[in-house]
């Protein structure tokens, strides 16, 4: 199956006078992926992004959006069809949140009713309450403002979103929260996103593919796992020592979960001849509701495999299935455990994750 390409750059360059800021850059962004452009300041990443919606015209090469050369399109129409989120948010201070979100619809002269309905829909999409609609940007925190910024970019329901260091101006905690929300949102909206950042951790977290720019040249392009394995000296230095560990942040813990763990019902007894028990010291006890009551050391079982409730040891605090492998590993290191139970919000027992299998994940390729 051929993948659909939403944005394509073919040997694109940008000169300011004789200075080459973007140098023969080529890449294509697949429909529905988050493509991250990263590099040190002045590497041309923002310029590259802004050439896509022609805020900055390119000097040479071709830029195709949904297969059409952008120079053949009206720049205003092009921009209206692409969502745009910037670091300094740029909400209009004299307009309410509602008017800010619906700004594109106002530009395209949509009815007031449509504007208001869309604003209401989007404010909830980005996790704000409807009562924010009548407020002004200055009454919101930085994180809330950027949510509005994202909502505004989605107003005209574009297929493509350009995000220029969207979470660069908020504190680290809020940034992480916004990243998580973006990923969750992306699950449902499936936009093609070109995302510029200078934060490698962020790139690993949100990016399905990452392009590293240096002095206007694209020096490395690939999945996070391919990037961390790059032999290029600049790339190695740029992504830093901890990069491999950061990549674990992009892998959901569910991928590292042990599926074939020994389980016994609280009312049943353990079949000690079961092959499944091999290599395990403990067996997990579940009830009829899919919850885990705890575990029993195989040694402490009665001869016939029966056990009493008193023998069950309670589970240590677990992690939710939504966390990343990195978070699970951190949790284990923090608590001095070699494994963690994974427990969903409704207390359902999803299994356990072992420290060793997390380490194994690094050895295998993601694809």
């Amino acid at each position, binding site marked *: 199956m051929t993948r659909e390409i939403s944005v394509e750059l073919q040997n694109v360059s940008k000169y300011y006078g004789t200075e080459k800021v973007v140098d023969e850059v080529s890449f294509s962004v697949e429909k529905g992926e988050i493509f991250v452009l990263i590099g040190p300041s002045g590497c041309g990443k923002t310029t590259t992004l802004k050439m896509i*919606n022609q*805020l900055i015209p390119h000097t040479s090469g071709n830029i195709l959006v949904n297969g059409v050369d952008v120079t053949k399109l009206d720049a*205003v*129409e*092009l*921009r*209206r*069809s692409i969502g*745009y989120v*910037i*670091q*300094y*948010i*740029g*909400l*209009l*201070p*004299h*307009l*309410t949140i509602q*008017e800010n979100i619906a*700004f*594109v619809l*106002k*530009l*395209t002269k949509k009815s007031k009713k449509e504007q208001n309905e869309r604003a209401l829909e989007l404010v909830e999409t980005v996790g704000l309450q409807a009562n924010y609609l009548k407020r002004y940007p200055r009454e919101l925190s930085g994180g809330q403002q950027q949510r509005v*910024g994202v909502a*505004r*970019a989605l107003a005209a329901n574009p297929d493509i979103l*350009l995000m220029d260091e969207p979470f660069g101006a908020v504190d680290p905690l809020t940034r992480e929260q916004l990243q998580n929300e973006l990923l969750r949102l992306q699950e449902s909206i499936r936009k093609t996103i070109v995302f510029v950042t200078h934060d490698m951790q962020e790139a690993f977290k949100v990016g399905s593919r990452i392009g590293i720019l240096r002095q206007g040249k694209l020096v490395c392009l690939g999945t996070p796992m391919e990037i961390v394995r790059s032999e290029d000296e600049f790339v190695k230095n740029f992504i830093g020592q901890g990069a491999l560990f950061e990549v674990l942040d992009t892998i959901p813990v569910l991928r590292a979960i042990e599926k074939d763990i020994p389980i016994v019902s609280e009312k049943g007894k353990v079949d000690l001849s079961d092959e499944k028990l091999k290599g395990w010291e403990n067996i997990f006890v579940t009830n009829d509701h899919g919850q885990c009551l705890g575990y029993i050391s195989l040694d402490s079982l009665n001869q016939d495999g029966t056990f009493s409730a008193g023998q069950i040891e309670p589970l240590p605090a677990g992690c939710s299935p939504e966390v990343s492998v990195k978070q699970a590993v951190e949790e284990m290191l923090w608590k001095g455990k070699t494994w963690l139970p994974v427990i969903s919000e409704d207390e359902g027992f999803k299994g356990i994750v072992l420290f060793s299998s997390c380490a194994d994940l690094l050895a295998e390729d993601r694809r």
Partner: protein
Amino acid sequence: MEGVIGFFQYFWDIREMVAVLTVRHAWMALAGVVLGTLTAVPMGILISRKPKVGVYVIDFAGMLYTIPSLALLGFLLPFLGLGWLPTITALVIYSWLPVLRNTVTGILGVDPAAKEAAKGMGATPYQLLMNVELPLALPVIMAAIRTVAVLTVGITVMGALVGARGLGELIFQGISMMDNRTILAGTIPVSIMALSFDQLLGLLERKLKVVTSSA
């Protein structure tokens, strides 16, 4: 005390003349402010697009601003004759510098992020001007217009010297007759007018803000 009562008595006696002169004074000042604003704001918008060229325009307006009002009126006299025409022309010229400068400062001072976001969302240059730049520059522009309004009411007084017939007529008459009552009869309405212009423009500013934020 007697002096005060005497003044009111005198004021009451010439009330009809004061009323006629006040109305004339008011419309000349108003015309000056309105025409000045209508010329300076668009000029300021153009200059904000080309700040490098604009510096010279602002310098020129600044040069005009330094000409004493009496000299300017005298200079306009041979071209425009006597009466309201040279007066209003002078008022317009004096309003240029503050309004022009504040329009440029206001527009150039608009948060670049707001402009970039609006442009990135597909605002045309005209939409950008009307929806972002002018509304955000409005407080700065209005501040200049209010200053100009107060200033203009004062300068209109000089118009009396070229036969424009404003409240200046009473003031200059009072000066030549060394009659403080007549001077006051002209000065007090001038002061009240200046203050009310300022207040009315303040009201207008708030109105405009509401309009731009809901449009």
